[in-house]
């Protein structure tokens, strides 16, 4: 029974859904961030699977760029979390839903 593209795409769908579940259910800003990273990884997995299935290296190039952007996003996002915690003493996203200080 060979491993084909469908299996990797299905696994990617399950991981993406777990990320969606984390964003919808959890109220901690850091856990929400981690769930977003999980969704990015699920999409990366499907990109690499497509790259292998069609013998085209451009999918892996896109994964490389997604990783770099995710690193930048994590740095800025965690700095925002630290700034919010300094002002409000909380990281519950229900308490910090307003943009005005």
């Amino acid at each position, binding site marked *: 029974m060979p491993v084909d593209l469908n299996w990797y795409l299905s696994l990617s769908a399950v991981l993406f859904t777990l990320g969606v*579940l984390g964003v919808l259910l959890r109220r901690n800003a850091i*856990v929400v961030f981690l769930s977003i990273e999980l969704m990015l990884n699920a999409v990366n997995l499907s990109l690499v699977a497509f790259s292998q299935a069609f013998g085209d290296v451009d999918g892996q190039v896109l994964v*490389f760029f997604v990783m770099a952007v995710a690193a930048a996003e*994590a740095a800025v996002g965690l*700095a925002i979390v630290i700034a919010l915690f300094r002002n409000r003493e909380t990281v519950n996203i229900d308490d910090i839903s307003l943009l005005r200080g």
Partner: protein
Amino acid sequence: MLETFLFFLFAVLAVAGGLGLVTSRNPVSGALWMVLCLFAIASLYLTLNAAFIGVAQILVYAGAIMVLFLFVIMLLNLGALPALGGLTPRRLVSAALTVVVLAQLLAVVAIRFTGAPALPTADVPVEATSTEALGIALFTDHAFSLEMIGVLLLAATIGAVLLAKRRFV
């Protein structure tokens, strides 16, 4: 046969890591579950002949980004969160939405990709997706994007330092 076994092993590990992230009460243990998930996905990249991406995943995600997350979690010193207890209406709506998303994704996979080309097996090395081909593509076709990614990382670093400074606005 070995490929099937490895795929299921790492798939189960990745899904277990994702479930642990969503259900764990303590953010530190959630981040460690996420590290397990990232390692499993890196191993899946290796089964897909994407060696460079797999190593970069371990170095960048598990090595740098997750350490940054753990550092911030421990810096903020948050207590344990309340358990995911009762079924509030919002949680029911969230679960229903999640089931809809999963059903859509799996339906697309089942309908569109049933006749997709089979993946080349591991004993046939695929030159088109090797690390050498990836490097050639990065530094010729995508050289401008690569430079822009460097500028983006510099801008993000400066922005993060400004945001986390003590006397910001």
